């Protein structure tokens, strides 16, 4: 399972793709169960360079019955900085946030690695 992420151009906010729109919460993100669908969305996302930057796919794992980013880097992006629990999206709390916080998967997202290589 994958999701598509980026940073919004005008304020840097972490955003996720959902059916042609960019949303702020990972819990609202569209999930891609197969590569072609995700890659098609990635192509669409990258065609919006004046809305978002650094568009890439992230790998997901299951956590507490919900999906969470596999890499802790992406969980930190989805939640906010661990040193300030009141900052970022983690401040909202709730089951979706808890599931992200409890996720323990560990690997790099292939989409991110590709982005680094491209740079």
């Amino acid at each position, binding site marked *: 399972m994958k999701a598509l992420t980026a940073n919004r*151009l005008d304020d840097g*906010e972490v955003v996720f793709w959902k059916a042609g729109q960019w949303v702020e919460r990972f819990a609202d993100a569209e999930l891609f169960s197969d590569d072609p669908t995700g890659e098609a969305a990635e192509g669409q996302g990258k065609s919006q360079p004046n809305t978002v930057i650094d568009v890439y796919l992230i790998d997901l794992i299951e956590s507490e019955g919900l999906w969470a980013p596999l890499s802790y880097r992406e969980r930190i992006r989805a939640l906010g900085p661990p040193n300030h629990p009141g900052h970022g999206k983690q401040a909202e709390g709730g089951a979706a946030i808890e599931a992200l916080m409890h996720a323990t998967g*560990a690997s790099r997202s292939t989409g991110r690695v590709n982005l680094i290589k491209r740079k």
Partner: protein
Amino acid sequence: MYQYDTLDKEFLADRAAEFKEQVQRRLAGEITEDQFKALRLRNGLYLQLHAYMLRVAIPYGSLNAVQLRKLADIGRRYDKGYGHFTTRTNLQFHWIKLRETPAILEELATVDLHAIQTSGNCIRNVTSDPYAGATAEEIDDPRVWSEAIRQWSMLHPEFSHLPRKFKFAVTASPKDRTAARVHDIGLVVRRARDGTMGFEVIVGGGMGRTPYVGPTIREFLPANRLFSYLDAVLRVYNRHGRRDNSYKARIKILVAALGADEFRRQVEEEWEKVGPGADMPDTEIARIRAAFAPKAFDTLVNRSEAFETAKAADPAFARFARNNLKPHKRPGYTIVEISLKGIGDTPGDATSDQMDVVADLGERYGQNDIRVTHEQNLVLPHVKLDDAPAVFAALAAAGLATPNINLITDIIACPGLDYCALANARAIPIAQDIAHRFADQDRAELVGELKIKISGCINACGHHHVGHIGILGVDKKGEEFYQLTLGGSGAEDAEVGKMLGPALPADRVTDAIDTIVEVYLRERAEGERFLDTFRRTGVAPFKEAVYAEAH
């Protein structure tokens, strides 16, 4: 402190206006991200994990109260009410919006602050001694030379596109508080036997992926020949530095590849060509020097009754005085170090309210002079001993009186993966965990001087290579691990730390530090700091103890 003139002020306002137009064009889609990125980085604006980060230059770590209040105000209005002081004595805001950045730069310009040359392959902010002008140790005021270097390097057309970034440190005391030997160029003010002032010139130190303690390439450079010599060093680097590989592009790689003798020969040859015409006129140095003229200190006696009485009455103040107050060159004065390492806090972070408190104290008790240290603390360099109890009380009320300067909880940590797009692992929670473990101040004082420095990646913003204990975050198949090094020093006895052994998972780091400290306490001889003991015993007893479980 140095005051900008009308031209300087107009330039900063123009620069902010220029960036405003560039941001508008980017948001309107008239320029691409690739085109814009180079422009925003020239104004210190990075994209990090959660938002943009703006790195504001604090030249040689020197601020006045108005400037610090402005930083507090920007933190409150454009960020989340805080800022992060860095190992380059800059201030970073971590929650910046691109669309608001032009307004921030306009506001900074009103108090002579900016974010120019805080990014990119240019000459960055100069590090200097935070005790400058206050310590009796110094041969000269290093701020004079730091400011002259700032003026020389600011928008220098020849040195704006170097192979890689370039960092200076300038110190004039035998006790090095600038990490001069691990900078691209470290300048140490020296006085010749005949009284002539000059510099020991150290070139090619650095940390990052390939750490080096820089060799001295000139034992004594007459002060009036500084800038022609710097021209020569930078020209040799600009010509031969590796532009094909960013990992090998710093001057340290060039110096190491050529060898110090050959590098020196090439610099001297180039210096002959440059000639004294490139030196800054004595009159200009004198003009800059006048801006740092000695303060009008009151004539006081060494002993302050108010200070002694407060120490006797309040053990907390006595402890603060013991650890955070440093000797001043004038009788009756002291240097106050303000720790930004409260137990469990994020190293280097200060809230906007705390910045306001320090600004007020600097204005009221400290001759309107505030410094930032490369160890991520603040300094009020000129406080009367009589006023020290009042300063302590105000700091304590603001959560800024942690009495741990140079102790085990005075930890340097980069923002790490909590914020930074380059990081492989978090640095902040490791620092917090270690600080909690050593929160007992009696134990911390028993351990004595012990500098822990933590970086979240090999770029070494947390100076881990020169920590007495260095901690480097690494990514092992997607998991946070930490590599420990021991015996590093960024001071006058600079040394790169030695690897202890295999990297440890996050939950074993603090236990390992505890073990290392226990080995030190067991092994130390009378009067030895951790570093001294380590240098005597070598890594073996520490390694054995930390990895005992694995055997």
